[in-house]
């Protein structure tokens, strides 16, 4: 019986290895692909211009909360930051998650879902904080993730549907056709419930 070696093609394997090494060492810039990418970006940027030219557009920040899309007007937003660490506050309402340090300032963090008294809480990552405020009030709003800034036309806003029942109904300025709920941040900031003043003996 002639002894047949295994079916491994060692020569081919070595060649592939060589090719892989060369690919790793070679510069990664590809002028053609880069050009195409830049063109695509330019096109997208030029597209964004149109809703802004409408005049009635509202600049807002879109974010996700338990799978639902919400938006806050940019004028109320101070900054966004990752939720690195926070300190829970005792004797505070349940919607107050705790307090955190923002560049030397102490701000409270609010869980909007609890504030809206939504009965079923969906799965949540809750790793972003949107710092909102006006001249009287300032606090952080928890979000699952931040989608980005966008402009919403006032004409696109529709009245709140029936599904937006409960406390959140009064805090929603309008809903777009894509089910993006624009929060009336001024009213939330002005709400007396936001001011926690309780003495515990």
């Amino acid at each position: 019986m002639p002894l047949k070696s295994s079916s491994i093609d060692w020569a081919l394997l070595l060649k592939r290895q060589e090719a892989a090494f060369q690919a790793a060492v070679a510069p990664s810039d590809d002028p053609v692909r880069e050009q195409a990418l830049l063109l695509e970006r330019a096109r997208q940027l030029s597209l964004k211009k149109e809703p802004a030219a409408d005049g009635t557009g509202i600049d807002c920040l879109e974010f996700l909360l338990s799978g639902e899309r919400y938006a806050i007007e940019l004028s109320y937003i101070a900054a966004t930051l990752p939720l690195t660490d926070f300190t829970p506050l005792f004797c505070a309402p349940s919607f107050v998650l705790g307090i955190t340090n923002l560049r030397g300032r102490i701000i409270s963090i609010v869980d909007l879902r609890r504030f809206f008294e939504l009965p079923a809480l969906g799965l949540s990552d809750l790793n972003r904080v949107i710092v909102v405020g006006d001249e009287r009030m300032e606090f952080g709003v928890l979000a699952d993730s931040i989608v980005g800034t966008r402009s919403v036309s006032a004409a696109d806003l529709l009245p709140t549907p029936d599904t937006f029942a409960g406390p959140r109904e009064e805090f929603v300025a309008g809903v777009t056709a894509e089910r993006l709920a624009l929060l009336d941040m001024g009213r939330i900031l002005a709400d007396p419930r936001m001011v926690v003043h309780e003495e515990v003996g």
Partner: protein
Amino acid sequence: MLSNLKIRSRLVAGFSVLVLFLILIGALSLKNLAAEGDLLSEFYEHPFAVTNAIQQVDTNITRMHRGMKDVILYASDREDMEASIAEIESCEKNVYRQLALARERVPGDKSKIDQIRESMDQWKVVRGKTIVLAQQGKVKEAIAFHKAYARRTVAQIDAQVNEVLKDSYSIAERFAAESSKNQRFTFAITAVLVALACILAAVIAFAITASITRPLTDAVQAADRLAQGDVSVEIGSSSPDELGQLLRAMGKVVQSMRGMGETANRIALGDLDVEVVPLSEADVFGKAMRDMVASLNTLADNADRIASGDLTIEVLAASPKDRLGNSFQAMTRNLRELTFEIAEVVNVLAGSAAEIMTTVSELASSSAQTATSISETNATVQEIRQTTDLTSQKSRQVYESAHRSTQIARTGRESVNSAIGGMQGIDERMGFIAERIVNLSEQSQAIGEIIATVADLAEQSNLLAVNAAIEAAKAGEHGKGFAVVAQEVKNLATQSKQATSQVRSIIGQIQKATTAAVLATEQGSKAVEAGVKQSSEAGESIRQLAASIEESSNATLQIVTSTQEQAIGMDQIAIAIQSINQASDQNVEGSRQIEAAARNLYELNQKLQRLVSGYKVA
């Protein structure tokens, strides 16, 4: 002439004639009897009475005479003389009385009687004188006187009396002769008449009897023939009398019976189209015949339906004793049951025949196959026979090669030992490869950590871009350019994130590949281990092989001898198969015949089924 009269008239006429004759004879006889009586009374009154009276006169005279003698004789005894005188006187009275009678009765001459009386008167005087003399005791004078006068007188009287007597006798004889003559005449007449009457009676009786018995005999003969069932007899009579009527009525009966007989004959010949009309309401025979024809027609209809295969009919018996109806009913029922059973049997038979046909066909085909197989077997046996020879040669060669194999086995054991050494070297290399691969896996783990850091950076860049966008928005019109920059930064962050996720997936693949490589080397190592073990086993096997080759070389010797025996056995098998082949040929032929028989049976059953299906049972 006689036959034109009615029987009663005939009898009356005959009897009348006879009765007339009887009356005639009777009258004649009575008249003759009366004449005879007259003659007899005349005879009695005249000759007979005269004779009688004269005889008594004679007797009394004798007694008177004797008395006179007594008177004379017994004149001494007064008493006796008185008695005798009394007796004489009584006799004298008698004589006179009788003489008077005779005188009265005597026909013809009465003078003689008168003479007797005169004589008697004379005698009386004489007697008186005698008696007186006797009484005076003058006996001798008395006797003499008596002798002188009395004797004479008495003799005279005797003579007169005898004369009268003689006359009287002659008259009596004349009478008797006349009577006898008259009697003979009457006898003759009567005898003639009686004879005539007898002859007439006989004639009349014969005539009447003949006129009655002849037609009666005809009627009796006809009735006898009728009683024996012969209706061909012709009875008829033109006579108007009762017998004629009887014969004509019988003739009608015979005619009617002949009609019935013809009808019955037609029925007996099976002609049921006859129309039987009863002669009257009371015609029991006609009605029975009509009912019988109707009943037979019904039965015939039923029989027709049965004949046409309709067994659903229910035959109703006309009466519990209706044997034909009951038989029909039973027959229909039995036929129905029989047909049912036959149908079932036919069905079963059909199935059986089909099965037999199938079986026989299979048998035939299998027989054919057997025949083929046998011829094949025969060929095979021949081949085996040749093969056996070959085997014999080969086993010899095997024996020789077994020796060589033993040496080769030894060489093989050495080769196996060296193979085991090579495999152990491979095992060491495998361990080295596995170690290197595990190192690579650890390094890719480090790359993964770096990539996580990059992803975190990308995330932070993203957030930063958002913040920048917010700030740009706050800056208003001046922040427009900055907003673009922020957008670019955001895009970069997004791309970085995508790149990190790609790298992470590649690292996952690398890790999987390395894990697979490690597992493969481990398996390789195990395979080498198994190879070593198998090589050792192979070595052992080769050793055992060598031993068994030794054994087989010995066995091969035995094979050589047994192969020769096998060759002989094969020859015997070939002969046996030849016999089997012949038997199989016969088998095939037999199964062909059975098949033909089964086909016939099947066709027969089909025919039977068609026949049975012709019967309607329900």
